[in-house]
C-alpha cells in the first residue's frame, strides 16, 4: 500500500478567472491546481503543504487555442499532448509541438498543462525555454486587472517567475514569424525523464540567429547571435564561446559539452526544416 499522502487542504473549484482570483486574494496559503503533474507529487511527499487548492480545471475560458493574424494565443489549461498534436500549432510552431512531445510520458502529457509548466518554471523543462525562444508574451491576471510580461522577463530564477502574489497566468501569446526557422534538440538519460540539457536554435531571414538553452542554469538562457555561421567550424566555435560563458549550476564540464552538442543538433533540424 502506498505511503505518500498529502496534508489536508480546503478545495475550491471556481468557474471563472474572476472567482479564482478572488479566492487567491482571500485565502491564505492558497495554490492553484491545474494539471497537478508537478504539484501533486510535491504534495504527496509533503514538500508542498498548501492550506487551500484552487482547482481551475473547470474554467473553460482557459482551455483555448486561438489563431490570430499575428499570433497564436494558448490558454493556460492547454495540455501538453494537445500542444503536441494540435494542427495549428504543428503548422505554425512545429518546434513547440515537437518539444511538448518530449515532456514526461503520454499519461503525464494528457494531464499536464502549459500554464502549470510555465509557472512551475523548472529550469530543466521544455516549455519555458520554448516560450523564451519564440519570444512569447505571458498574460497574467490579478484582481486589479491584467498585464503582459515577455517570456524573457517572466523566468527570473530557480522555479521562480515574475508572477506577483495573487496573480495567475491566463494565456500565452506566441507571435507568428514568417522569417524565422527553429530547431530543437535535447538529451535525457531515459525517454520521459527531465532533460540534462536542451536547445532551441533560431535562424532569422537576415542570417542572424539565436540559441536558447535549458537545463544548464536556473532558467532558460537566450543568446542572440548577430550572425549564425553556415560554416560548420565557425558555428562550432560560436557554440563553444557562448557555452563557456554560461553560469552552469552543477556538472559544468558535461553540461557545457552537451550545450554545444545540442545546439548543433538543433541547428541541423533548422537545416532539415528549411529543406522540408
Amino acid at each position: 500500500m502506498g505511503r505518500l499522502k498529502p496534508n489536508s487542504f480546503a478545495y475550491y473549484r471556481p468557474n471563472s478567472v474572476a472567482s479564482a482570483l478572488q479566492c487567491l486574494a482571500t485565502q491564505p496559503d492558497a495554490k492553484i491546481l491545474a494539471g497537478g503533474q508537478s504539484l501533486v507529487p510535491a504534495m504527496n511527499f509533503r514538500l508542498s503543504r498548501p492550506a487551500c487548492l484552487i482547482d481551475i480545471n473547470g474554467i473553460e475560458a482557459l482551455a483555448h487555442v486561438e489563431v490570430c493574424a499575428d499570433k497564436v494565443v494558448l490558454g493556460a489549461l492547454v495540455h501538453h499532448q494537445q500542444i503536441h498534436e494540435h494542427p495549428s500549432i504543428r503548422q505554425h510552431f512545429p518546434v513547440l509541438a515537437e518539444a511538448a512531445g518530449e515532456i514526461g510520458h503520454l499519461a503525464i502529457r494528457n494531464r499536464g498543462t502549459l500554464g502549470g509548466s510555465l509557472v512551475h518554471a523548472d529550469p530543466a523543462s521544455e516549455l519555458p525555454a520554448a516560450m523564451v525562444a519564440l519570444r512569447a508574451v505571458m498574460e497574467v491576471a490579478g484582481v486589479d486587472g491584467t498585464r503582459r510580461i515577455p517570456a524573457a522577463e517572466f523566468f527570473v530564477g530557480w522555479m521562480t517567475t515574475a508572477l506577483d502574489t495573487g496573480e495567475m497566468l491566463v494565456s500565452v501569446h506566441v507571435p507568428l514569424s514568417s522569417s524565422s526557422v527553429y530547431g530543437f534538440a535535447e538529451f535525457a538519460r531515459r525517454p520521459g525523464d527531465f532533460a540534462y540539457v536542451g536547445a532551441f536554435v533560431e535562424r532569422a531571414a537576415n542570417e542572424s540567429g539565436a540559441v536558447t538553452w535549458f537545463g544548464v542554469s536556473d532558467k532558460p538562457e537566450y543568446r542572440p547571435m548577430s550572425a549564425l555561421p553556415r560554416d560548420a567550424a565557425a558555428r562550432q566555435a560560436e557554440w563553444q564561446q557562448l557555452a563557456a560563458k554560461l553560469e552552469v549550476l552543477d556538472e559544468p564540464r558535461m553540461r557545457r559539452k552537451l550545450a554545444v552538442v545540442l545546439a548543433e543538433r538543433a541547428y541541423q533540424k533548422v537545416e532539415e526544416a528549411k529543406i522540408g
Partner: protein
Amino acid sequence: MSDAVISASGRTPVRMEVNGVAETVYVEPRWLLSDVLRHQLGLTGTHVGCEQGVCGVCTVLLDGVLVRSCLLFAVQVDGHRVTTIEGVTPDEGLSPIQASFQRHHGLQCGFCTPAMVLTAEALLRTHPNPSEADIRDAFSGNICRCTGYQFIVDAIRGCSEEER
C-alpha cells in the same frame, strides 16, 4: 457547474461513472483517486507504486484518456467517467489484449499489468496498427521490472495484428 468549496476536514459527495456504473463516494479533498478506487470502491486492480507519477501502475482512463490516478484528487473527478482494469475485463475469460499478454508471456509478477493493459487499450484506440516505436513510446511511462518489455511489445503487436 457553480463554484464549489469544500473545507479541509469536510467530506463531500463525488459522483462519477466508474466502469459504466454511477457511483457516489464521500471523500476528503486530500484523498487521491487511486486510493478512493481501491479503498472506497474496492477496485484493487488499480495498483499503487511510487505515488509520484513515475511508475505508471496506477494509470486509469479518465473520460477515455490515459491519466495517473495517484496525481488526481478524487474530488476532481466529480461528474467524470473513470475506467479501470475491471472495466475492460469481461465477466468470463480475457479481453483480446489480456489474452495476447497471456499468449506472449507479457507478464510475470503482474503488478504492472493492469496499467499495461489500459495503456494498450488507449494506444490501440488511436493507433490500431502501431509500429514498434509507437508501442515503445506509449509504454515508456509504464515500468516493468520483470519482462524486459520485449514480450509486452510482442503482446501489443500480436493483438493489433490479430484484430486487423
